[in-house]
């Protein structure tokens, strides 16, 4: 098959897309060559300097089939240069940012790894800003992300495995773990689950997370996420498996515990006592964010007798003349708050700022003055609204649960709130992902893991890896006494 037929066949496979570039040129002995690549997917300057110019100066001789190997090995100055013959391989290579060199009268083609995708430089992720600690964040380019993690995991035990998912997007996936720590059965289970994914496209890592969770209709997230390389490195060191998805700055970690969202990267870089205090604060913040409106409604509707008398008088004075019953009043403010939040997120930044001020100050103040809503109800929702961001990763779940508990409190009073909390805990206790109980290390209670639980101990006392995460290498810290004995 001559070079023209080959080019036409490849162009046909790409349905004559205009961004498939065919750059024809001649070698020094006038043999026609062609370089095929996707526009904007390769580094054109580098390709021109390190491949095209060099081939132009090369003499293939009478039998290019013999000399092409020399060209591949000694001439083309790229790290990744391989021979390719299979048509599907050629197509896959082009879409993955390779350039394909075709030489007339030569059966073998050459793929050259010179991809250059549009990407940004690592910067501090907006979702996990820290006061202390590294400020690097993942970007949308998978190779840059692997580089960021490799920088921290300079060990031959750190393994990266490749996979491609999505029939139309052919998205590159990388599974990373520590070979001497991560449990093989978990790695195997993850790989099997990934292989079973038959979808047209993977646009973001959240697509994969949806397939990897065991309870697909669950309200709660079952796969860990992070944008910070230091966090991912720390999780991999504990025996978790990290999954990188090309095009997404969010890296997934498995197994995931609910408690992980109470931990922040700051906790590990500050004084343990402060980390302990902050973890308790986050926990109380989350509990109050979920239950406070429900408790308020139930107290006002059913159990005003258990409110202290002075407090009751203040509330009674404040709600006097409000046309809505407490339940509807709270629901009204919750919806108002959520609408303002949603609108301020979607609006251009300068408008959003104005809207939040208008919403919080003017709308709230006017509604109170007009006698539509009472100041205690506004206060309750404002407090819970702020508290729900003590755990930003779970803010969506907290918002929904707050609504559910408000309904329960309005319908069944404090008994409903207690029963609802019990159902919630039973539901969470029942969740198991990748051999890991979702509520570990509290349900089941694992005493050894409490060192990094609600009470944070210094890293020097965390001798073993957490038992909550299944692993094959328990020890993480060599005891100083052992060194002395040696």
């Amino acid at each position, binding site marked *: 098959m001559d070079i023209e037929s080959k080019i036409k066949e490849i162009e046909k496979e790409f349905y004559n897309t205009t961004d498939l570039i065919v750059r024809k040129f001649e070698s020094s002995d006038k043999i026609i060559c062609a370089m095929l690549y996707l526009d904007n997917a390769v580094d054109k300057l580098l390709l021109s300097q390190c491949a095209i110019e060099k081939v132009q100066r090369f003499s293939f001789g009478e039998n290019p089939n013999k000399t092409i190997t020399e060209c591949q090995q000694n001439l083309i100055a790229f790290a990744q240069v391989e021979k390719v013959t299979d048509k599907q391989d050629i197509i896959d290579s082009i879409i993955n940012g390779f350039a394909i060199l075709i030489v007339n009268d030569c059966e073998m083609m050459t793929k050259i790894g010179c991809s250059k995708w549009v990407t940004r430089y690592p910067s501090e992720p907006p979702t996990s800003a820290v006061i202390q600690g590294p400020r690097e964040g993942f970007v949308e380019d998978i190779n840059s992300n692997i580089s960021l993690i490799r920088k921290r995991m300079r060990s031959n035990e750190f393994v990266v495995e490749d996979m491609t998912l999505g029939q139309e997007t052919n998205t590159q996936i990388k599974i990373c773990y520590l070979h001497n720590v991560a449990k093989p059965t978990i790695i195997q289970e993850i790989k099997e689950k990934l292989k079973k994914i038959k979808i047209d496209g993977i646009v973001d890592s959240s697509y994969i997370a949806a397939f990897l969770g065991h309870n697909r209709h669950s309200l709660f997230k079952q796969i860990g996420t992070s944008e910070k390389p230091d966090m991912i490195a720390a999780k991999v060191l504990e025996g978790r498996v990290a999954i990188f998805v090309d095009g997404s700055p969010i890296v997934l970690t498995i197994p995931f515990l609910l408690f992980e969202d109470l931990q922040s990267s700051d906790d590990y870089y500050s004084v343990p006592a402060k980390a302990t205090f902050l973890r308790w604060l986050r926990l109380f913040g989350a509990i109050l964010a979920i239950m406070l409106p429900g408790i308020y409604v139930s107290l006002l509707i*059913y*159990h005003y007798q*258990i*409110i*202290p008398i*002075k*407090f009751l008088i203040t509330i009674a004075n404040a709600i006097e003349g409000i046309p809505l019953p407490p339940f509807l009043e709270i629901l009204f403010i919750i919806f108002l708050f959520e609408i303002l939040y949603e609108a301020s997120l979607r609006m251009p930044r300068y408008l959003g700022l104005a809207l939040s001020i208008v919403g919080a100050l003017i709308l709230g103040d006017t509604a109170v003055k007009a006698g539509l809503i009472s100041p205690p109800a506004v206060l309750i929702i404002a407090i819970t609204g702020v508290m729900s961001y003590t755990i930003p990763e779970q803010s969506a779940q907290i918002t929904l649960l707050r609504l559910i508990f408000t309904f329960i409190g309005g*319908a*069944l*009073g*404090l*008994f*409903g709130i*207690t*029963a609802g909390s*019990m*159902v919630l*805990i*039973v539901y969470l*206790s*029942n969740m*198991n992902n990748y051999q890991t*109980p979702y*509520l570990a290390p*509290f*349900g*089941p*209670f694992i*005493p050894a893991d409490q060192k990094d639980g609600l009470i944070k101990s210094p890293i020097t006392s965390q001798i073993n890896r957490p038992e909550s995460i299944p692993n094959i290498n328990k020890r993480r810290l060599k005891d100083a006494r052992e060194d002395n004995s040696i």
Partner: protein
Amino acid sequence: MQGKITAFEYYMFAMYAILTSKVLTLPCVIYNVAGHDAIISLIFNLLLDILLIFFITLLIVKNPETTIFEFLTKKITKVGAYIVISIIAIFLFLKTLWILEETYEFLIHSLFEEFSTISFFLPAFFIAGYMAIKGVNTLGRSLEIFAFFVAIGLVLCFINTAGIIPLDTNLPYFRNGIMESLQGTLSSSLYIGNPLVLLFFMGKVKIVKKMTLKTVLSSVVIMIFVILNDFSFYNLMGNSVIYSSYALNHISQFNPYVSDLGHLTWLSIAISTVNLLSQVSLMVYCYSESARKIFKLKMRTIPILCSFVIIYIVCLLLHFNLTDFEYIIVNYFSYPSIIIILSMLLILIILNISRRKKNETISN
């Protein structure tokens, strides 16, 4: 490990078994019979439970891989095993019925002026059924987490009154001999025997070193707490105990020093509800597991649903009135109940001793 609970979860189960109602309605029920010696009756009551826990745990530790059904079948044939298990299951079912009615009455008394039966029984059935259906792991983990709240709540309630308890309100004890105390224990026999639920976790517990000792010690700690709380209640209330129904409610609010700040009634209500519903879930799991084995059912759902319908109908027939329940229980169930508990205790002792003798013979 799936299908097995941890030793810590087992200790918590024992805690619930001791705690149920013993800081709520039992002190008032006993006082009506035993008078000033009520605390002594309560101690007898608790000691019987501790004995049950000790012998059951001993049996579980010695047979870590055998379920109660397999064990009894091996020892007393299949028919014998079915009879024993059925008796315990019926006993636990009656207790469930009693605790649910008690919780309903408690909530009406403490929280609501009007509370529809459906509003209580539907969520209660849902929680108990959901936990029981999900199996031992879910049950263990959930009750373990609830236990923290219950324990913290109890400590707070006790601290609330600790500084103001007069110690001599009911002195001297044994004014009329020991009979009053024994009668008090007998009249409240349906409150004893909750640890029988632990039998159903035989072969489903991850055994640890010195587990029997640890279980008994943790149970004794809970027992001391129960005694302290009830002692506070009796001494704070004096003779007016006969007018009260729920001990923990009084302990949590009977502190004049903090009246300006509001009392801890909400806390006592929350921990009592959690405690009672947790114990109900344990019992529902146990009797539904028995029904599943006896009737060779694949799932626990059917026996659970049937039992809930029966419970609701019985409560309906008794007009959801705790006084009627108490009357029936004290008059008709006291003796059968204490006979079941004492015979179970005897059977457990025999089973433990017989095993030891057999082992000694083999080793000789």
